[in-house]
């Protein structure tokens, strides 16, 4: 039903790879272990070592740019920096990039890496479904040494917009970064999803700038994954987005605190061909801008710009 069939959008097969297939295709893939910008899992890591040859990367160093007075705390880096990064990883050898995290609680770091690489048109990355724990359960090889960064000199510059595998990158419209004005417009005319915890979405009586974007739907991302950290089936994802009014021909946006958790919403939506724009600056920027409206409470409100009257 969606328009724009000529735009190549990410699909499940083009964006998500399960551990069993990744093990079979090991020699065709380049694994990148993405560390989160803050601790997201409690307790010790049950796995020592990493996927053999995996490259270490981090949200804070590689997938975020410098903060500005008006940005959120994890703005996008310059696109050129992502192209340089992919070159340092050896992108010209034809292997497809697979990003993953060590802990299932850190999945949003993989989706942030996926989004950032796609937005910059630097790479069509796959995400390893279930991360390192799924790899271990599938008896994938593990080497004792940790993943290392690839900070050496770059290789041959990649040709514009095409990975050496010969597959064209998804069109930029599949990875949309929204401004505050664009997010507010989507909240008024479409649907905006807020991935933050319930208490911060609701807001606090004694904090005037706490709450959410007006008309935003509370949409924590934990229910997009199974208990094993695997992405839910297309049918389950479809129901998730339908239940939140976030599937259809209208404009949909997503945000969180710093533009990481909400990338999981964007990724899950892409698997079922539903474009969702990402407000990267997210609440960390919105809250600081006194000109932007804030709504509190748990009751979902409707924009009165939309004429839903029958007469």
């Amino acid at each position, binding site marked *: *039903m969606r328009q724009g069939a000529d735009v190549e959008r990410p699909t*499940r097969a083009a964006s998500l790879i399960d551990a069993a297939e990744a093990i079979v295709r090991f020699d065709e893939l380049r694994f990148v272990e993405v560390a989160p910008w803050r601790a997201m899992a409690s307790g010790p890591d049950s796995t020592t070592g990493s996927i053999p040859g995996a490259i270490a990367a981090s949200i804070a160093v590689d997938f975020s740019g410098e903060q500005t007075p008006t940005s959120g705390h994890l703005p996008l880096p310059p696109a050129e920096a992502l192209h340089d990064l992919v070159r340092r990883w050896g992108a010209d050898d034809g292997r497809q990039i697979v990003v993953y995290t060590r802990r299932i609680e850190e999945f949003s770091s993989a989706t942030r890496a996926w989004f950032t690489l796609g937005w910059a048109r630097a790479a069509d990355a796959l995400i390893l479904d279930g991360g390192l724990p799924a790899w271990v359960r599938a008896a994938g090889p593990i080497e004792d040494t940790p993943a290392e960064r690839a900070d050496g000199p770059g290789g041959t510059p990649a040709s514009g917009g095409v990975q050496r595998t010969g597959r064209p990158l998804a069109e930029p419209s599949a990875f949309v970064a929204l401004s505050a004005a664009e997010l507010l417009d989507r909240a008024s*005319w479409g649907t905006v999803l807020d991935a933050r915890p319930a208490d911060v979405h609701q807001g606090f009586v004694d904090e005037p700038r706490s709450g959410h974007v007006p008309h935003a739907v509370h949409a924590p991302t934990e229910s997009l994954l199974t208990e094993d950290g695997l992405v839910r*089936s*297309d*049918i389950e994802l*479809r*129901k998730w987005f*339908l*239940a939140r*009014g976030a*599937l*259809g*021909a*209208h404009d949909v946006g997503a945000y969180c605190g710093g533009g990481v958790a909400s990338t999981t919403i964007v990724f899950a939506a892409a698997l079922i061909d539903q474009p969702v724009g990402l407000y990267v600056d997210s609440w960390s920027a919105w809250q600081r801008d006194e000109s932007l409206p804030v709504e509190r409470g748990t*009751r979902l409100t*409707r924009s*009165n710009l939309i*004429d*839903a*009257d*029958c007469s």
Partner: protein
Amino acid sequence: MSARVTVASNIHGAMTDVRGRYAISGSNFELTSDGSVRSGGPGEQASALDLLVASLVSCALNAFRQDFVEDGQPDRHVEIFARVERRVDGDYLGTLILECFIDGVDTATADELVAEYKQRCRIYNALKESLPVVFVPHTSDAAGR
């Protein structure tokens, strides 16, 4: 055809203490419906359009639950998500999209269920010219990763 008349539905509508909020009741039920904020109502409870959509959803749930189910077999489990899409500047009602999740049927059976519903549902047939309805069935054989 007999000239005798019967009453198929009996509804009472009344104001409430809240401006633009109405109590809609039948013999054994009561609903609350709001006028939109644009029209001076609270815009929180079911709108008139919501209730119209709900009627088609209710009828479709009932049809898909039991149509073509053989005697002695259990009813199907059905879940429907409905939305009305309309151009932002449109002055028409819109297009109703019914995403129907029907357990235990294949695509061919789902298509038969939709065809049967379109043929039999009096509400659908009364509205279809002014409110186009698009069915999007999701079935067992199309489900999964």
